[in-house]
């Protein structure tokens, strides 16, 4: 059962009945832009999807929480989806995996957002650490050979 902030269960019921998360969905739009998100629906209680699969019926603006049910080969699983509807369009969405089975956790990770960021370097002396991980140190023979080639190239 889902409710929106105004407690409107009728619309909520329709959305949750229609919202079935299946393993192949990768098309979540996680941006703040007001572009429609295509959701695969199993059941169209209110209105029928047009050829693009989008629900045509207008829903009340607001925030919704949905528990999507799906069946993995290991059994029933749930995915929690929080979405914001603005003028019939999903303007924001968060997917929260609820998987209990290891395989389902991995599959849900497929469409939980990968974190993308530009990183900065900090000097090793300024950081609390006990080990460093990166490419392996190359052996002396390798380094010597590279140096030899470089000096040959210079001459």
């Amino acid at each position, binding site marked *: 059962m889902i409710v929106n902030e105004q407690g409107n269960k009728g619309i909520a019921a329709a959305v949750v009945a229609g919202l079935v998360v299946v393993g192949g969905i990768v098309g979540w739009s996680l941006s703040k832009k007001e572009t429609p998100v295509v959701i695969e629906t199993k059941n169209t209680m209110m209105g029928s999807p047009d050829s693009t699969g989008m629900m045509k019926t207008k829903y009340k603006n607001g925030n919704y929480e949905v528990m999507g049910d799906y069946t993995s080969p290991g059994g029933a699983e749930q995915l929690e989806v929080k979405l914001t509807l603005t003028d019939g369009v999903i303007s924001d969405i968060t997917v929260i995996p609820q998987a209990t089975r290891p395989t389902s956790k991995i599959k849900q990770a497929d469409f939980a957002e990968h974190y993308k*960021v530009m990183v900065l370097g900090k000097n090793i002396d300024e950081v609390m650490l006990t080990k460093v991980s990166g490419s392996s140190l190359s052996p002396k023979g390798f380094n010597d050979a590279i140096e030899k*080639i470089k000096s040959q190239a210079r001459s």
Partner: protein
Amino acid sequence: MSDHKFSFEGIGTKWIIDLYQVDQIDLEDLEKKVRQRVEEFDQNYSRFRTDSLVWQMSQKTGWFDLPSDASKMLDSYEKLYEITEGKFTPLIGDLIAAAGYDRLYSFKSEVSEPVKQWNEALERKSNQIQIKSPVMLDFGAAGKGYLVDIITDLIEKNGVKKFCVDGSGDIYAFGQTQKVGLENPFDITQVVGVVDLENESICGSATNRRKWGNYHHIFDPKTGRSTVGIVATWVIAPNAMLADALSTCLFLVPIERLVREFDFEFLILDSQMNATASKGFRDGLFSGTK
């Protein structure tokens, strides 16, 4: 209780072993066992020495007996070969050597043949392998990680309860948390983040050290050239062989193909310092925005 650290050169790189609370341990004996085990691994699997099994298998066809530790490693390579549709392969040695990273470090590149398919060149039967077509195998992608696991087991069996095996950035932290800095491949005096590691492994791969001419040491067998775009990867996984293998796979195939098969954390860095990270790496990264 006191701690003990020792380091040595092995399989072409530097190793550091940290042992904690070792008052009851015969350290001289343990150190000797570790060094011997590393040398044994090198003698079997190195393509840089003419007395190795791998060298012999590159010189002629026929059936070869395998050491007892081979099957676990070959099983992993076989599985990842299938998952990556042949992009992650041990049959890459001839290509790397032709590009210049050969036994003598000539760094002179020459034309090479296409990389052979697994079934074309190899056949496995219990503890033996048939070389059907001479091929230089290279186990660089997962071999070091596997050796980290082997040494971890060895040290544990010798009674040490807290220790760290560091095979030059491929690390297993046993019973004690390590704070692992993620080396900035563009400036090795820096790190781009720090992650806590305990009872699991982190392995890092990057293109910054082993490079020459137009090449670095990670090759795409389909193009015959070094990979382009990704500069560094890290993987945290329950064992080092898996972490090591996956850190190379990330250069070769999309993340999704690996995420559906294995449970692991990853960090990928491109040439513009853009990072793609799983949850486990997120909090440890240094960035302008979160």
